[in-house]
């Protein structure tokens, strides 16, 4: 029934164009070519193999929230190059490129909206922006979203997608792990629920801070989730990593996440859960 509703709601709104490559997307897992309109109407889950494709921040908002309900909060906070960081390229150049590519100031989109009519505050990381790395802007926007939720009495949802803390801001990035925790404590003191949704991939400093102190942790099927990256671990232990290591299902087995929830089921799942934790009845 939930799926049924989802399909009805998610009818593609764009017309098929004339340009053939635009019509198709190749599934990274089963390599099948999928009509974009079929992907769109299936929450960007491959209809053939169930693979959950990575989403941009705007796509994620569309998949989670009630249509047209989203009001952005972020966009005002912009990154600076406090360390005058330069490796093979200047940090400022990297930022410009990522901003041009995504149309965002940084790897985060925050806002408020409704989920099956339940008011929520939402923060979504954008992996397309510098691998979803967490620098000062991501930390600040996550913190503001948590404080906004506390102030407005709504639950908080954070969708993570991150390679970890941003190298180019060094210790400043590292400190965001503590900063976001401060803001989430403000939310906790207000007695409001915080649910994190870990999408592929979620690693490093994000895993070791706000992603994993949620009241309820939901993971997307197949998502890579861990602190150290698989390559670093392999270098340490000098042996092969087991099949499925650090995947969502592995983490469920090891007691680290509350549930692995198919993206197409997340709206009713979250609405029911938040309804129970806030004693607010979502209109289903």
């Amino acid at each position, binding site marked *: 029934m939930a799926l049924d509703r989802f399909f009805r709601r998610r009818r593609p709104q764009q017309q098929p164009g004339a340009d053939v490559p635009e019509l198709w997307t190749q599934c990274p897992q089963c390599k099948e070519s999928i009509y974009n309109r079929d992907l769109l109407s299936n929450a960007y889950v491959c209809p053939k193999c169930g693979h959950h494709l990575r989403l941009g921040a705007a796509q994620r908002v569309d998949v989670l929230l009630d249509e047209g309900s989203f009001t952005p909060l972020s966009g005002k*906070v912009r990154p600076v190059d406090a*360390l005058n960081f330069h490796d093979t390229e200047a940090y400022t150049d990297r930022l410009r490129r990522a901003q041009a590519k995504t149309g965002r100031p940084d790897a985060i989109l925050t806002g408020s909206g409704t989920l099956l009519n339940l008011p929520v505050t939402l923060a979504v990381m954008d992996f397309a922006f510098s691998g979803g790395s967490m620098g*000062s*802007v991501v930390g600040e926007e996550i*913190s503001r979203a948590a404080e906004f939720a506390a102030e407005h009495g709504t639950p908080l949802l954070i969708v993570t997608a991150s390679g970890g803390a941003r190298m180019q801001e*060094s*210790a400043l990035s590292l400190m965001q792990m503590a*900063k976001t925790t401060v803001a989430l404590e403000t939310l906790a003191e207000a007695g409001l629920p915080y649910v994190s949704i870990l999408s592929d991939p979620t690693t490093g400093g994000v895993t070791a801070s706000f992603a*994993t102190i949620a009241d309820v942790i939901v993971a997307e099927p197949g998502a890579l989730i861990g602190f150290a990256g698989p390559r670093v671990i392999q270098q340490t232990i000098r042996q092969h990593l087991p099949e499925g290591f650090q995947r969502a299902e592995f983490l469920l087995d090891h007691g680290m996440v509350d549930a692995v929830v198919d993206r197409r089921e997340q709206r009713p799942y979250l609405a029911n859960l938040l309804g129970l934790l806030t004693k607010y009845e979502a209109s289903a």
Partner: protein
Amino acid sequence: MTGSPEALRELEARVRDLEATAERTGQNLDASISPLRQEVQRLREASGPLSRWERVQLARAPGRPTALDYVDRLCTGFTELHGDRRFGDDPALIGGPARWMGVPVMLLLQQKGRDTKTKIKRRFGSANPEGYRKAVRLMDLAEKFGLPVVALVDTQGAYPGLEAEERGQGWAIAESIRRMLSLRVPVVCAVIGEGGSGGALAVGVGNRVLIQENAWYSVISPEGAASIIWKDASKAPLAAEALKLTAPDLLDLGIVEEVIPEPTGGAHLNPEEAAAAVGEAVGRHLAELMAQSPQELKKGRAARFRALGAFTET
């Protein structure tokens, strides 16, 4: 390396010898010592400031005092409390109550090991999840009994092992950060060698964060950064420059409150002097914080970390 640090260190040692002899014998040796002191000063100025990579080398120098070396010199009555009461006891992150120059505190220590055997046992100070979970338990005790927390940070990072991931390394670090932020007792952290990434921050959430002159603190080790940027860990010296990971850098960035001076040439050349400086600095901040109320301590620490970061707003 610029200048001649070896010559400098040797001269400094001779100065100290003469000063000690003067004190022991009661003789006035100023005529001999003065010219040496001037030469030391000249060499110091000639050698210029240390490069960032040179400081990283000092932070890793063989014989650099470990956390327990400071505890041995500064603390009495240290009682190591073992175990997370859930899975195991981590020798890389240890702790327990002690008196810090007389003041009862709860110690959290990232301990690298002093020789090959203990270094391996302690995984060079890289903790597993049970280490961070033990830290949380000790923080619970500190809170219950009103003991200030003193954390000595010295790790290249949390242990990147398969079993560490299975048992939730990220979860354990996040929980330790959260617990440390919620403490209603004073928390003073001192980076005494390496401050690597989340594994360091896990016990680095202090009301005051201090760092020794030649210690480093960064989101990633220079080698790790070099591997990512140039696919070549040997470019670590370049990465160290880019990461601005030294004590003076961190003071500039507002990440630490104070740089604790080290003996010229590094803490390993004179552990006693290094310990005295660490003891004094930590003790002074403890004393200041102990005048604050539990509520102020928690709020102040939260506000400190809430404010960190660099961005503009349009």
